[in-house]
């Protein structure tokens, strides 16, 4: 068994800061639990704000401090996203505590080409989520978790000592190669890292017990009587002398995530940054399920008190469909950006929800070293998706020919990406007669003088025709026309017709322009 533990020492703070606009992320930030500071970022720590301080003290130290409230649900969702990213590497992923994800990777090593390569890939996959991570490797699950947490606490201590250099040095991986090495490392660990020991911390300290090794040398029966069996169990599980079954995590069938914005967003582009964070989670989920997203929905919930009237909708819903299923972050982000750019929010929004239940299970496409026809095709699909997201479905079109003799019905346009029911038969056209390239959908009437159709102040010369088209009595669009090819004064060719329907009104035009030969 080889376990990796990903510990997120700043999970709560980062989960809250994710919703802030990028310009505010460098400011001093701190998270409150009740009236006490729970966590502070580097800028705040530099001003002297430390976890455990009172709110008023912190504000006195750093007047520009931005404060947020801790939210266990938000933390849980952020941790879930990390677990989803981990699920792309092994099916055996479990959560440990409130800020640690465990992966059992012994079976995946061969596929990823060794532990180091896997770790590098894992770090790459975690990077877009934007969390500060501490990763440890050990033969037992709890052992790995404790090592990662220990490393995280040491960093926090280093940070509070303003000892940045030390922190930089500790970026590396905490690793115990075998059980003996793990047990040695655990012996040197402070007792307070154990969950079961936290409530007994004052008593343990009073007894002069600092390290795990001190505890291990005491009689087990006495320890169990004083501190409970749970403490002994935890140590045994960490040392690998007691089985430690875990409940594996499963990625849900449909993706659903929400994010509360830190500030009211009045325009759609203001939510882009926060929505991008949700997209990162969507991609992590898709990778966990080996899914490729077909369509997703972004719901921007409007604040009830900011809605102008009852007619204002309670939410703005953006639905983004992909021409071909995809799970690439950059592509989804580009689509979302184009769509958000042309959305008008009916009212300010404070909460975003991203939902996706339309996906397909598909292996990712092979990547190509050199541009090929396949890569050009996928590039074209992405380009058209972007155009469609910005311009709308009705602006990006494909042509389809219809077997109908009436010119205005012989061609129709469909939104691009709609699968044609039957692929158009290329040639031959309905009649082996020349047809103009440009068709006017509504024929333009032409005046008649001296029994000739006139166009732009001159008579038209009829060169070919008539070609009689009489069709459509069955669908109400009866056309009875004689078509001619005519030449205009400047030499260009027109396609005109004379209506053959009985005309009641003698003033009604007889001649119509149908198209031009381009």
């Amino acid at each position, binding site marked *: 068994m080889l376990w990796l533990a990903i510990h997120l020492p700043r999970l709560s703070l980062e989960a809250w800061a994710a919703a802030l606009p990028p310009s505010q992320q460098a400011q001093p930030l701190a998270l409150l639990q009740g009236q006490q500071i729970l966590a502070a970022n580097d800028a705040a720590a530099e001003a002297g704000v430390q976890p455990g301080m009172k709110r008023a003290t912190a504000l006195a130290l750093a007047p520009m401090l931005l404060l947020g409230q801790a939210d266990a649900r938000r933390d849980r969702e952020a941790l879930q996203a990390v677990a989803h990213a981990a699920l792309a590497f092994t099916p055996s992923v479990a959560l440990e505590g409130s800020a640690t994800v465990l992966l059992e990777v012994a079976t995946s090593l061969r596929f990823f080409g060794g532990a180091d390569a896997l770790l590098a890939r894992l770090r790459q996959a975690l990077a877009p989520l934007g969390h500060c991570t501490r990763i440890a490797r050990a033969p037992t699950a709890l052992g790995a978790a404790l090592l990662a947490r220990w490393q995280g606490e040491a960093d926090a201590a280093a940070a509070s000592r303003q000892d940045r250099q030390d922190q930089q040095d500790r970026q590396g991986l905490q690793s115990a190669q075998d059980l003996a090495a793990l047990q040695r490392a655990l012996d040197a660990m402070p007792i307070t890292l154990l969950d079961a020991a936290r409530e007994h911390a004052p008593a343990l300290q009073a007894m002069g017990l600092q390290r795990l090794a001190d505890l291990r040398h005491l009689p087990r029966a006495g320890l169990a009587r004083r501190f409970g069996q749970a403490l002994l169990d935890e140590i045994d599980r960490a040392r690998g002398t007691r089985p430690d079954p875990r409940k594996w995590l499963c990625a849900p069938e449909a993706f659903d995530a929400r994010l509360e914005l830190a500030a009211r967003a009045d325009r759609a582009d203001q939510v882009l940054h926060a929505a991008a964070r949700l997209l990162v989670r969507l991609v992590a989920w898709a990778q966990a399920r080996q899914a490729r997203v077909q369509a997703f929905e972004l719901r921007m919930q409007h604040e009830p008190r900011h809605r102008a009237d009852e007619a204002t909708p309670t939410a703005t819903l953006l639905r983004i469909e992909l021409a071909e299923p995809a799970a690439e972050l950059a592509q989804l982000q580009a689509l979302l950006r184009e769509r958000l750019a042309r959305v008008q929010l009916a009212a300010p929004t404070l909460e975003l929800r991203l939902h996706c239940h339309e996906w397909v299970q598909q292996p990712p496409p092979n990547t190509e070293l050199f541009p090929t*026809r396949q890569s*050009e095709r996928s*590039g*074209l699909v992405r*380009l058209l998706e972007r*155009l469609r997201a*910005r*311009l*709308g479905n009705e*602006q*990006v*079109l*494909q*042509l*389809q*020919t219809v077997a109908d003799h009436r*010119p205005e019905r*012989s*061609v129709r*346009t469909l939104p*691009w990406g709609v699968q044609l029911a039957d692929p*158009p038969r*290329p*040639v*031959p*056209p*309905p009649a082996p007669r*020349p*047809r*103009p*390239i*440009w*068709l*006017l*959908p*509504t024929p*333009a*009437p*032409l*005046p008649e003088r001296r029994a000739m159709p006139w*166009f*732009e*102040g*001159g008579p038209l*010369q009829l*060169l*070919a025709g008539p070609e009689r088209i009489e069709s459509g009595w069955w669908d109400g669009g009866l056309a009875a026309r004689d078509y001619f*090819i005519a*030449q*205009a*004064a*400047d*030499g*260009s*060719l027109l396609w005109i017709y004379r209506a053959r329907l009985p005309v009641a009104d003698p003033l009604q035009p007889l001649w119509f*322009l149908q*198209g*031009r*030969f*381009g």
Partner: protein
Amino acid sequence: MTHSPNLLVPSDRFAGAGAADPLQLHPALWRAHQLGQQRDDVVPSGFAALDAELPGGGWPTRALTELLLPHPGVGELRLLAPALVAVQQGGRSLMWFDPPALPCGWTLSALGLDLRQLVIVRARDGLAAQHPARTRLQAPADVLWALEQTLRSGHVGAVLAWLPAHVRLPSLRRLQLAAQAHDGPAFLLCEAAALVRPSVAPLRLALSPAGADTLALRIVKRRGPPSTTALHLELMPTLSAQARARARAQAGRVARQIAGETAAGVVGPAASSAFARISGRTPSRSST
């Protein structure tokens, strides 16, 4: 003052000293009396007479080509069709931006184009389907944006864009820059009124109809010596042989009467709304 007969000496000395031929120095250099070369591939136009006049012997790639028409429907697509078919046969797609009317799919198929490899992008205010008598002073911003993105992506085989006469020069410059990433021909079809405005496109052609199934084509700007005479190209015939003969006879009679009138009409003020004339409804000067 003595008139020196040796004004040309420097250039002679330059050539005589065995210095490199400017054509060898850089593909963008050419002598003023020669046709320029094309650094990139060209797409043959399918008309030998036209290829002989174009720098590099065909439609340029990675650059804009501007075609100036008095109105749509002078034979412009039959002129471009051989090149477009060649692009599609290479497995690449066509994109048309804001065409002036609905293209007839049957005719395009008859010209050899594959409709499955054709995408049409139209402006928000509609294909001319809804607005037959549209006149636009400014090119719609979303079409220009889409055109630029398409050129920049380089995933499209050939691009045709119908633009109004008054496109702002910075927009054209952006398009020309974007076109450098576009490995294929890019045609801008503008109204003839655009003839008087400067353009960044290295190749500009003015088209006008010259009788049935014949197109008169004048090269307004190219990398090479200015061209003086108009080319007359025979297009893929629409008419039967005897109809064409009839057209010729009539055209000869009519041409003598109205030759001056049409020539004025191409660049005259009335041409500013020329694209509206596809349906014969000129807003400023109603023909009915």
